[in-house]
């Protein structure tokens, strides 16, 4: 039975609360991993595009830290020196908790010592120390993480928090990806963050020239329910390189991440004094790692960056400027949507996903390492039901990014005329949701093989579709595409589906791409049906 006993001073409790607040902005649950000399807090966001690791060092962050792993979980092999590090990894206590249960426990615990003695008498808040103890009694069903707060006036507050067992999910970040790096003081960066509005979706960081770095935020949300957002907002902030403590970025590697994530990070870093944020990244589409640490708290954020949008086999992305001109070139008509559809082609929303299977080096941010459950990612996080909504329907988008320009232009016509079924626009809304799923399905597979696999899978799906849904398949691995199909099947009669299928297969043969297949499943159609 593992034992864990941590003592924290009020200041550390306050910092722990800040850290948890930051984690709560990414996901609802936090994974605790206790090791011999440190406590790791991890959160993976629901779309798997961001992974946060906050490591609290046992000696510097905590007043006292004592963790004894469960003896039964340790291997008793050779005790040679080479085994030591391995043994450190073993027996780690891992659990998962709802961050919302943790937050109020640590909120507002640090209150400065009052100067006025009389006021002190009536002080309610403030603690002397905080103890965190693990109570593990598997047989009694009394597994709790117990947090005891010793308050100033002799009051003791005890919180018994429930937890569940969890596997640790690591983010992979290969050393060779870290070709670009910069470092800047958090306070400096924080000053500028407020300019990026809450509605903006992604932030592009680009070294424009030798002297300046450009932070640009875009609004990518085009369709929100029935409403079409008519005011794409773009905010650009140029920072002089002087502001950076370190800056080594190859030119022409603009990189884009989610504004919200980036702001959350900077906000948290800003609560620490004199912290320097360090960012390391490679090509767009590869993860970006942001790190900083202070007084025993080490924070590491792995964010997936957007892949350069509709990059064909050539792999060259269009510069933003060009897109802008393209935008303005598309006048009137469906402008509202058409204009913005330009953007996704530059930067696809979730680059975690192999938006373009033909692209090289598509790496999942997240690799489930524990228990060698390579599939844990996909099985643990089935797409939320939300996604099966008509508007994220068409899978066609995915294909577009992959395929040749000819195909693009071919479909663009329709995009302008219908505004909804066109190649560009559906892709945009598509990429928001589907690609993520694609990631789950295809992420682990080597990218070059992606094409065939993808098509093979689509064939499978076709069969499925025709034959009707087989529940046995779903139990193992339900992809979003499949879910969609299910939804479609449920909505429409079989006949309709089959008919559609026929159409699509026909189209598929013409173009030789899987685009058509996905269009068949296009749930956007559901919109009109309804």
């Amino acid at each position, binding site marked *: 039975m593992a034992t864990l006993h941590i003592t924290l001073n009020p200041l550390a409790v306050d910092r722990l609360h800040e850290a948890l607040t930051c984690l709560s902005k990414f996901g609802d649950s936090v994974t605790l991993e206790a090791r011999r000399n440190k406590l790791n807090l991890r959160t993976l966001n629901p779309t798997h595009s961001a992974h946060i690791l906050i490591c609290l060092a046992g000696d510097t962050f905590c007043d006292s830290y004592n963790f004894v792993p469960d003896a039964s979980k340790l291997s008793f092999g050779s005790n040679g020196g080479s085994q030591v590090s391995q043994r450190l990894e073993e027996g780690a206590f891992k659990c998962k908790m709802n961050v919302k249960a943790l937050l109020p426990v640590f909120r507002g615990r640090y*209150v400065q010592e009052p100067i006025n003695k009389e006021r002190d008498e009536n*002080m*309610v808040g403030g603690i002397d120390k905080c103890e965190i103890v693990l109570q593990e009694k598997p047989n009694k069903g009394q597994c709790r993480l117990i947090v005891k707060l010793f308050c100033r006036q*002799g009051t003791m507050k005890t919180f*018994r928090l429930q937890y569940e067992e969890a596997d640790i999910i690591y983010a992979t970040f290969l050393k060779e990806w870290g070709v670009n790096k910069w470092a800047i003081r958090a306070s400096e960066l924080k000053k500028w963050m407020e300019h990026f509005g809450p509605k903006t979706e992604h932030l592009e960081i680009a070294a424009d020239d030798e002297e300046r770095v450009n932070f640009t935020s875009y609004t990518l949300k085009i369709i929100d329910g029935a409403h079409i957002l008519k005011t794409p907002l773009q905010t650009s902030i140029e920072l002089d390189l002087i502001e950076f403590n370190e800056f080594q970025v190859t030119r022409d590697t603009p990189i884009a991440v989610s504004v919200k994530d980036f702001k959350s990070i900077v906000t948290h870093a800003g609560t620490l004094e004199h912290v320097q944020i360090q960012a390391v990244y490679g090509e767009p589409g590869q993860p970006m790692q942001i790190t900083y640490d202070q007084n025993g708290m080490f924070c590491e954020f792995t964010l997936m960056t957007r892949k350069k949008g509709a990059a064909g086999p050539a792999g060259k992305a269009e510069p933003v400027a060009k897109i802008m001109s393209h935008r303005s070139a598309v006048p009137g008509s469906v402008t509202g949507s058409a204009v913005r559809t330009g953007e996704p082609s530059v930067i696809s929303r979730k680059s975690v996903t192999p938006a373009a299977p033909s692209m090289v080096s598509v790496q999942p941010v997240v690799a489930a390492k524990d228990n060698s459950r390579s599939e844990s990612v996909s099985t643990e996080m089935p797409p939320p039901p939300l996604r099966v909504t008509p508007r994220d329907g068409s899978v066609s988008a995915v294909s577009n990014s992959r395929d040749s320009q000819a195909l693009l232009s071919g479909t663009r016509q329709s995009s302008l005329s219908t505004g909804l079924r066109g190649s560009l626009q559906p892709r945009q809304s598509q990429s928001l949701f589907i690609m993520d799923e694609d990631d789950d399905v295809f992420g682990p597979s080597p990218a070059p093989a992606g094409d065939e696999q993808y098509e093979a899978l689509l064939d499978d799906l076709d069969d499925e579709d025709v034959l009707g849904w087989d529940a046995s398949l779903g139990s193992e691995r339900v992809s979003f595409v499949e879910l969609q199909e299910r939804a479609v099947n449920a909505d429409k009669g079989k006949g309709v589906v089959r008919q559609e299928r026929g159409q699509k297969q026909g189209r598929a043969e013409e173009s030789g791409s899987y685009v058509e297949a996905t269009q068949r499943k296009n749930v956007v159609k559901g919109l009109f049906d309804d």
Partner: protein
Amino acid sequence: MTQDPTPSAAVSGPVFSAISSSTRHIYDLLKCIGFMPIASVSISADNIRFSVEDSHSMQANVCLTPDLFSSYNYTPSSVNPDSAAGAAPPSSAEQFNLESEEENNVKFQISLSALLECLQIFGADGSNIGGSGGINNNRQGGGVSGRDNVPFGRQGGPVFGNPNLFEQNSLRLPGTCRFVYQGTGFPLSIILEDAGVTTTCHLTTFVPPSSVDLIPFNRTTLTHKIILKSAFLHDALLELDHLSPETLIYSISPPPKRPNFSLSATGILSSATIDFSANNKVVMETFLVHEEFVGRYKFGLVRKAMRAMGVASKVSLRGDGEGVLSMQYLVEVGEKGAAPTFIDFRFLPLNHDEDYEDERGEDEGGYSGRDEDDDGDEMME
């Protein structure tokens, strides 16, 4: 309890009239029980009492003493001169005795939410800072930060039409406020006068139900009496409130055992216990425990007392042999030195044989659950 004054009383002038130069403290006090829309009012020569009850399991009373008014006249028509004659205004906790209610008090029901809105017209809700400063000027500072600004909205629910409507109105108008009640069947009139502008509000009064019963509290079987700083109780309940629990477990054990006084609750994700030490005189003013006491109360009901907890300076907690919990809050109104006002809450315990999640090994001791229906039979004379 039906010997109310006859309606003919109105002929000879109002049964009750009172004048106050500020409605703020009245408003603040009434707001503490403002979680129910209807209040029962009982007027006597000693005080005017507002009571509310929820689910027949909790009651709250506020007694406005004549001290709070610059003029206070009570002239029952079916005059029973000795009851009205020159009784000294009660000014201490001992005189705040709900049981000493007299039969010939004027009783009616009134819409409390409407009354509170009327008082707001006067700017009573003007600036909360000023208001709480006046009331709690004995404790300011970081320690209680946020406490006075606790959003009470979640406890009151829809009771106040729009509690924040006048929040920004920081005008403090000098003027007078007159309460007039002519007698049974007449409305309660609130006349706000200010620099030539007179606002008259007539609040419809309702005939009280034939039996408005106090939750009986048996002083002879008192198990404990604790007086502690209200702020600490408030803080503890706030902590527990985060768990959104159903039940509050209130347990007290005699000094040799520790902890002495603890509140605990269980939510969906976690459970929590707050233990108070009886030894800290700063927190605990009085700690008298005759026997162990464990009671379960509906958290949602206890939470309704949190506003009173927020403005009060001290609270007296008592439990009787039946498990009824009495909380009396001492609220310091107006300038220092003025007689304090008391707000009284009573809670019936939850029946212990219902299935509740056991967090601590409970010793039921002298506690026995009480059915809500019982209290009707044992109502006070």
